[in-house]
Every structure is written in structure tokens, then in C-alpha cells.
């Protein structure tokens, strides 16, 4: 990967890079397929039931069957829907979810773009998904969708502020927005220790951004039937689901890189194990935490949801920025 980056761009290189990107797409789709399987399996075990075990050995083909079913379903679109926006919404939701993966360094030599503005790129692109959600809610011309879409948008923008602010502490300590620099700066100690408050804020806000338990209000089946994607069926619906799980992949990678030392081993003596193994281990830990939370937590109330972001997380994130700034100045000998 790195050797390709240093050559002058040519048609051959573009083709090679495109093939590598398609390979990553295949990995991500494989991850989504088995993340859903393990999610159902793990939640099943936690609730003392076997989980999916009928399709294929141990139920391993359950998600494959589900995807095939979605692909074969009729694609209905209500007559009163806004045709253009209705078609645009799934693309708006899914496109950025995959595009953010371009900047993720998975190990020293496995990674794609090495942008100087990596963090900013992730945050800027991931906001576009909110537009996809609100477009879907509006375009369906359905009361449930509209309310669900607005609720999702309100939740996502409210939690985006503390999410984005919690990263500022890390940038202060590293002095760079590049994700590789951020990992390299964690050689001595992972960011989760000096930036523990930021980590807590980030973890909670990430749950809300991903619309996952206990912040899964947008999909509150019991009150909104399904929220912004009530009118979507077949593969358009699958695209919203896919975007959600691809974001889980992206957010897991981002948390691993920002707080858990990316591909670095926990102690120097274990450095002989390849970096990608450490990355996958930390990443899997985060994904497991997601499933665990979903099996454990009840859904938060809508009125508590908004005030928690603004009254709880935002002040903590701001205080963390100031404390980190003072500490960095102090250790530089500024006062």
C-alpha cells in the first residue's frame, strides 16, 4: 500500500487502488454479515436461548439468507412520496459510511489514504448521513417517517457536538489531525488513560451517533413503528441497515485508533505479534461491547436523551479541553 502511494499517479495505480478498495468493501460486507450473526447469537446466549441455528451449520448462513431475501423483495414506493429524494436518501446514508474508511490505518502498512486531516475528514463526512436520514423521513411523505427522521436528526446533531469536542483533547496532545501520527504518539501510553473523560464522552456519544442501544430511539418499534425507514422495503431498506453496521465498523476503527493505541501492542515485549492482530483484537472488543450493551440496557427516554447530551456530555467535553490545554502548557513549561 505505502509503496503505491509514493509513485506518481497513473492509470495502473488507480486501477490497483480501486481493486484494493473493492477488497476492503468485501471485508466490510463480510464483517457486517457476521456482526449481525454474532449480535443475534451473543444476545441469544445472554438471554439463555440458542440464537439463530437453523440456516447452515450453527446458523452461520442466517444473515446470508436474510440479505438474499431482501434482494428478492419487491421494491415498493408510496405514490405520494417524493420520487427523487426517496431514491437519493439510501445513497446519502450509505455513501459516507463507506467513504470514511478511506483514512483508517489498520496497521503500520495496511491502510489507504494518509490524509493530514484524517480526523476532520471522518467527522465531516459522517455528518452527511444525518442528511440521508432526514431526507428519507421527509421524502416518504408519511407521518411516522417525518417524526422519526426529525427525532433521529435531533439526536444525531446533539450528540455530534460532544463527540467532536472530545477528540480535541487528543489533538492537543498530538498536535496533528493525522490518524497515523495519533497512533504513533501513543507509544508510551494509550490515550484512554490521559484522556479518560474524553473516552467516556466519545463512547457514549458514539452509541447515540450509531443509533444503538440505549440510544436506539429512532428505531423505537413500539412508538414509531420503525422511524424514518417505514416506507422503505427490499434493498433500499437494506442500505440503511448496511450503513448502520458499516458505521459500527468505522466507529470501532476510530475508537481503536484514537484511544486504544491502534495497532500498537499493550506492552513492548509483545511487539512480535503483527500490528493488525492487535488492531482486530481491540476492534472486536469494542464490537462485543456494543452487543453486550444491547442485551443489557433499556432504551433511554426521549426527554432525557436531549438534555443528557447538552447538560451532561457537552460540559464534560469542554472541561476536558481546558484541562488538557492547561496540562499541555504546563508540561511545555509555559508557566
Amino acid at each position, binding site marked *: 500500500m505505502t509503496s503505491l502511494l509514493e509513485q506518481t499517479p497513473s492509470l495502473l495505480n488507480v486501477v490497483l487502488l480501486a481493486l484494493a478498495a473493492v477488497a476492503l468493501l468485501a471485508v466490510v460486507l463480510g464483517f457486517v454479515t457476521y456482526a449481525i450473526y454474532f449480535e443475534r447469537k451473543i444476545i441469544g446466549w445472554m438471554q439463555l436461548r440458542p440464537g439463530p441455528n437453523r440456516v447452515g451449520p450453527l446458523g452461520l448462513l442466517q444473515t446470508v439468507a436474510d440479505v438474499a431475501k431482501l434482494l428478492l423483495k419487491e421494491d415498493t414506493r408510496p405514490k405520494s412520496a417524493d420520487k427523487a429524494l426517496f431514491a437519493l436518501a439510501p445513497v446519502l446514508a450509505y455513501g459516507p459510511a463507506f467513504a470514511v474508511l478511506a483514512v483508517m490505518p489498520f496497521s503500520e502498512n495496511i491502510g489507504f489514504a494518509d490524509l493530514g486531516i484524517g*480526523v476532520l475528514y471522518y467527522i465531516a463526512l459522517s455528518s452527511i448521513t444525518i442528511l440521508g436520514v432526514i431526507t428519507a423521513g421527509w421524502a416518504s411523505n408519511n407521518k411516522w417517517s417525518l417524526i422519526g427522521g426529525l427525532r433521529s436528526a435531533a439526536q444525531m446533531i446533539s450528540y*455530534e457536538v460532544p463527540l467532536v469536542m472530545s477528540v480535541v483533547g487528543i489533538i492537543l496532545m498530538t498536535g496533528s489531525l493525522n490518524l497515523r501520527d495519533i497512533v504513533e504518539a501513543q507509544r508510551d501510553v494509550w490515550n484512554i488513560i490521559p484522556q479518560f473523560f474524553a473516552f467516556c464522552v466519545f463512547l457514549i456519544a458514539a452509541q447515540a451517533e450509531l443509533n444503538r442501544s440505549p440510544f436506539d430511539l429512532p428505531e423505537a418499534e413500539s412508538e414509531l413503528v420503525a422511524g424514518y425507514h417505514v*416506507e422503505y422495503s427490499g434493498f433500499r431498506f437494506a442500505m440503511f441497515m448496511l450503513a448502520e453496521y458499516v458505521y459500527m465498523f468505522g466507529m470501532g476503527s476510530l475508537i481503536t485508533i484514537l484511544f486504544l493505541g491502534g495497532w500498537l501492542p499493550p506492552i513492548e515485549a509483545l511487539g512480535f505479534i503483527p500490528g493488525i492482530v492487535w488492531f482486530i483484537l481491540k476492534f472486536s472488543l469494542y464490537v462485543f461491547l456494543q452487543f453486550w450493551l444491547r442485551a443489557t440496557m433499556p432504551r433511554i427516554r426521549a426527554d432525557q436523551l436531549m438534555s443528557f447530551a447538552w447538560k451532561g456530555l457537552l460540559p464534560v467535553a469542554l472541561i476536558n479541553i481546558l484541562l488538557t490545554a492547561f496540562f499541555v502548557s504546563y508540561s511545555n513549561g509555559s508557566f
Partner: protein
Amino acid sequence: MSAIYANNYVIVAIFLLLGILLPVATVHFVGPLLRPKRPNEEKLKTYESGNDPIGNSWVRFNVKYYIFALMFVIFDVETLFLYPWAVAYNQLGLFALVEMVIFITLLVIGLIYAWRKKVLEWS
């Protein structure tokens, strides 16, 4: 250096293109070959818990959503200023810290005002 720079943005373009291509290809090109298409009056009706939909769905909604959007814009712009400040912090010295403390304080006053005015409550 410039080759690396160009290559990086070639990758970004490839990823964006792939991200758009997958939903478009599956929904509009592969999908129609596989799925049935038998629309009828009932199927194309807007879903409203099984009843016939009443009126238009593009209704007025709670003004609170606008207020939260406004708050979001304010604080998102604040982060926009915080990011370059944080990157260059080590070169800027104490002056930058004092300036940013003043800036954050001004916005916190706004947050406290919104808090006192019960804007952050969802009722």
C-alpha cells in the same frame, strides 16, 4: 510529496465513488432483474397503521427541532475554531490558551442561558 498528496485524494475519490456505486448498482441495476414488480393501489398507499392516510404528511412540527439545530450550528462552528487551534497549540504558546478560554467562556455563557431558559428540556 506531491505524488503522495495526489494519490491520497485519488483514494478518497475511489472510496466516495464505491460508496455511491454500491447502492445505485444493487437497487437500480441488479435488483430489477431479481425482484418482482406487481404494484397495486393498496401497496402504493402511504402506511398509516392500516388506516387510509388522513391529509398530507408534510405537517408542521415542533419548533424545538429548530432550536436544537441552531444550538448545533453554534457549537459546531466552535469546534471548527477549536480544531486548528488544537493542532497549532504547541507553537502558539500561552496567548492562544488565554484567547481560547475567553472564547469558550463566551459560548458557555450562551449554553447556561439556554439551560436557564429551559431550551434544553424536551417537553
